């Protein structure tokens, strides 16, 4: 009796298995295309990367802080109105960046005594330093020095060269 039942079971499972293997895959079925194709409207799942981070405005070649020079009239050490925006910009930067230090270098044109010109150049450096100080920059962040006529930017002996050399430069350390 048991042998018959077993046989029946075996037979029916074989038949069932035979039935599974006869199901065929439909090779012509449509497959959804998930590759990227150029479309005029962005796909909702697109991720376009952006890079950001902190930038030092001091290094922006187009910003006002890129201007580091103040020019002076002959025999003068007054900071003219046209240079006040530059001075204000550096004052603001230095007040927000108390760890930064500058040396202000005063220069003169070549005419006259070297030592007297050293003192004139010092007055030009001091004038810029005082302007920055009044705007809140701390003493410890600044030193005013003079090159007098010793390090000219322009080497001619004409009014244009002289005007180029009557100058204070703000030099970040």
């Amino acid at each position, binding site marked *: 009796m048991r042998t018959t039942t077993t046989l029946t079971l075996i037979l029916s499972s074989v038949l069932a298995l035979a039935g599974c293997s006869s199901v065929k895959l439909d090779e012509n079925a449509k497959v959804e295309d998930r590759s990227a194709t150029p479309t005029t409207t962005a796909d909702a799942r697109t991720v376009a990367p952006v890079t950001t981070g902190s930038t030092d405005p001091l290094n922006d070649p187009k910003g006002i802080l890129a201007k580091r020079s103040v020019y002076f009239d002959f025999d003068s050490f007054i900071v003219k109105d046209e240079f006040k925006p530059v001075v204000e910009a550096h004052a603001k930067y230095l007040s927000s960046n108390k760890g930064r230090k500058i*040396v202000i270098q005063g220069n003169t044109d070549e*005419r*006259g*005594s*070297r*030592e*007297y010109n*050293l*003192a*004139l*150049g*010092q*007055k030009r450096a*001091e004038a810029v330093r005082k302007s920055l100080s009044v705007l809140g920059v701390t003493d410890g962040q600044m*030193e*005013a*020095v*003079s*090159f*007098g006529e*010793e*390090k000219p930017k322009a080497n001619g002996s004409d009014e244009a060269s002289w005007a180029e050399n009557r100058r204070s430069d703000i030099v970040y*350390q």
Partner: protein
Amino acid sequence: MMKNLIFRGFVLLLISFTGLAQAQLRVETSGVGATQIPIAIAGFAEETMAPQQVTAIIKADLANSGYFRIIDTGNTMSETTAVNYADLKSRGADALVVGSVHRLADGRFDVRYRLLDTIKATSISGFGQVAGPDRLRVAAHKISDDIYEKLLGVRGAFATRIAYVTKTGNEYRLEVADADGESTQVALRSNEPIISPTWSPDGTKVAYVSFEHKKPVVYVQDLTSRQRTVIANYRGSNSAPSWSPDGRRLALALSRNGYTQVYIVNADGSNLRQLTNTTGIETEPQFSADGQYIYFTSDRSGGPQIYRTSVNGGDAQRITFGGSYNVSPRVSPDGKTLAFISRREGRFQLYVLDLASGQELRLSDTAQDESPSFSPNGKYIMYATQAGRWDALAVVSVDGRVKYRLTPPAGDIREPTWGPFMK
């Protein structure tokens, strides 16, 4: 407050004081004194065996001085050769110089000289010196000094030295030379400017301003040992050193309190004392020869003028009144004359002022004069000027008549300082 500065850029400092002569300065005379003493100079016996021609040096010294007309005797005469006074008088000579240069066994030279009065047929002076081959030029200059002093009554300055700054491309050099521009030696080389050199009274040190720290700092350099001492590196600019006559102190211009003011300090940098106290420019201090006063440049009246104050401080008296720009005061060794640079009609020219009478005299015809320096005998002033495109050193007598120039072979030359009498 001393500030620690980080070196920027490439700083090349090479201190060398070699015994080798560098390229010499060329001398060109363009003016002589009102009267010239005709003096005959014989060849010295055996001098052609020595590395330097002693009589050539003596002739050049006396000719450049502007007060002698040189007559060649055409022969050689030692200090023992018999003299034909009649012959010399007929050639117009008032004095005769004779001598010998004898090489000793140890390689040094026995240099003997005699100065004779041809009219009185007597000996005026004479002495001997022993000198090594590298000291022969100095020995010749000392003979010139003696001739100058015996015939003019003023000590000669031929055996003195000068210091000055040269700039060739990006290299600055502080150089020392004999007063005739020979035997140049380099004391300091730098790729940053050097200005305002000034000799110590004993002639062994030079104080100067160097920009090697990217700001002006005052140094004293001992020429014999190469030792450099920072005298002033305070906040701001440090410059314009001037020695006291006893060599113990320096006057300086410092901007440490925000305004350039005159200070006095010990020669080692200690004991700083502020002398002036204004909100203007006070600079270019100079000790008077007796050490009692400081002359200086001040713009307290609106433009730069020269003032004088006691070395102990107090009120300052104004000294210059001509024109609106008077700078670079230098006092003569006898305290009677002030040399300075004045801008008149746009030209920067050397002037002297008689301090007693207030009389001033313009000494140059050029337009960019700077940095005057008296010879230690007070008879001449050396200054920097422009000869065409290039800078040169010029020498003029205090009365304006004697003129000559020292030109370097290449590069610009400036900031001369005339050294003291030395042994």
